[in-house]
């Protein structure tokens, strides 16, 4: 059986706890992820040294489903965007194989995970709107698993990686056409926890 994920309720409690501790947070209309320091990639030390003992890190993020339920923008972390240190991976239509660019991004994401050895993430698999909901949920599951398997080959233990598929249900871009569809055929990473400070 897979590892138990933090339920949406627990992540809300997590977020509330951070708020109570007086950490700076973005306003409610933006996903929590954008509160992180900009320019974060795998080598950014800032997010881990910013922690005090016993405190939950402000880099805990909302999942796409949580953002959706709250009426917020579905988060995306494209390569050029500031925000999450873990960038989204993109796929070809009806495919779950990794393109060279995807492998590069995953290597960077793996570095971040190695720098934050107690960090746990959830890998979300998504699809564009074409095709049926059921097939796309299965496709998203395959995409998330492909990423998990690849990160394992890069030395990240599987107990730190959970997966979930949202199929075509949570697009970041709405509307027909390849420019939108391309952005939706993705895997997105959600930092579940960074664990206790070392």
């Amino acid at each position, binding site marked *: *059986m*897979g590892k138990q*994920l933090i*339920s*949406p309720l627990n992540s809300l409690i997590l977020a509330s706890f951070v708020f109570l501790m007086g950490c700076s947070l973005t306003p409610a209309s933006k996903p929590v992820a954008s509160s992180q320091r900009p320019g974060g990639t795998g080598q950014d030390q800032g997010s881990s040294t910013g922690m005090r003992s016993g405190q939950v890190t402000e880099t805990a993020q909302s*999942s796409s*489903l949580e953002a*959706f*339920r709250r*009426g917020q923008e579905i988060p995306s972390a494209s390569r050029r965007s500031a925000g999450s240190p873990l960038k989204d991976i993109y796929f070809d239509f*009806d495919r779950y194989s990794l393109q060279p660019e995807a492998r590069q991004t995953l290597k960077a994401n793996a570095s971040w995970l190695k720098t934050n050895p107690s960090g746990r993430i959830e890998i979300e698999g998504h699809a564009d709107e*074409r*095709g*049926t*909901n*059921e*097939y796309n*949920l*299965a*496709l998203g*599951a*395959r995409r*998330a*698993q*492909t990423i*998990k*398997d690849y990160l394992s080959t890069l030395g990240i233990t599987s107990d730190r990686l959970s*997966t*979930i*598929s*949202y199929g075509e*249900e*949570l697009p970041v871009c709405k509307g027909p056409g390849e420019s939108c569809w391309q952005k939706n055929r993705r895997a997105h990473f959600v930092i579940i926890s960074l664990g206790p400070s070392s």
Partner: protein
Amino acid sequence: MVHKSLLIVSFIIAMLGFGSLPLQAQVKGLIVGPGAERFPIAVPLLKNLGPKMDDGKYSNGMADIVARDLELSGWFKVLDRSAYIEDSRRTGTALGRFDFRDWSTLGAEALVKGGFEVSGQSIVAEFRLFDVYRRRQIVGKRYTAEIKDFRRISHKFVDEIIYQFTGERGVFDTRIAYVSTGGGRFKEIYVAHMDGTERVQLTKNRTINLSPSWSPNGRTLLYTSFKEGKPRVYQRDLSSGKDSMFSSRTGLNLGGSWSSDGKTIALSLERRGNVDVYLLDQLGKIVRRLTKNSGIDVSPSWSPNGDRLVFVSNRSGSPQLYIKDLSGGETKRLTYTGGYNTSPEWSSKGDKIAYTGRSGGRFNIFTIAAKGGDPQMLTSNSGDNEDPSWSPDGRYIVFSSNRNGRYNLYLMRATGENQRRLTVSPGDDTNPSWSPRLD
């Protein structure tokens, strides 16, 4: 609650007068062939036979439902009521109480007359179907029901009319479960009458809900929901309105197709990214794993006699339909046309499978013989058309189409003829599932 009215309806039905021989003997050739002429029929307002005043709710309402159902059936052309010449204040509904010439002069070949009486919480309604040329009553029925179920009386009589004309009962007293955004962002499960009216919202989970699927006895619905954060399959009891968990395994739990005897449910489950088809019992326990493929195997649909299942697999490199024989264990590919074929549904007659196929960049509804062969494309040049579901008599298909902008539910004959819009809603209506015959 409203759910009760979907199921616990008592109808007392009595035969009226003398029926003559069924009409199908002489009209069969006229209405059952593809592309056949539609049979001209008149449906005047119902007569109020009781003392209580009616503002048209029953006299117009019940006649309108009959007229619309007959149009939806694709077999009838309902003559415009504004052309009717009979003075209903001077005539009755039974033989001898009206003049057939008032109807034959309009070109009507059949006539539906009715009357009703409301008393207390009940309504008594009678409907009669006449053969205008032979000047005979074909069939007459009297119905007694709770007043809130008056619409079902109309639908039931339409089923009777269709029986008289085709030898097989109609499906106009059934329901369709589906997913709708209702104008907002959440996808919830709804149930409507098969004509698209009387919609009821079943879930208020404020999340993504998908793939409703009726049990063969019409009492429960399986559906897939992210209401607990992960894709799980729930079972909704339609009379109590309560949900119970059906499958909450790690990973994807998706869909649900019931065997005709209601004992086995085919579901898609995931193990480490790999989605496969499994058979579960009524308690959600796995009884058999049907596919062991390292790709995607999803969306099973049972054959009506329970010996086979059709499902989607990408084992050949793209999603195609395959049929698994349950006794022999053999899996055979069904579709060879088109590069992307999904959401199969096995017709209740057992001979055909409907599915969604991608052609020319758009999605269309196809049917293919269960034994294989060339597919028939039923929709074209009308946006994207997806998620077919068969009526319980195998003569109609409901599907979702965005031909008018947003996705709405559409109805068509199994031949693709008579495509009619069923739902009008502010959001997107998708994933329809046609109920079994109810009651």
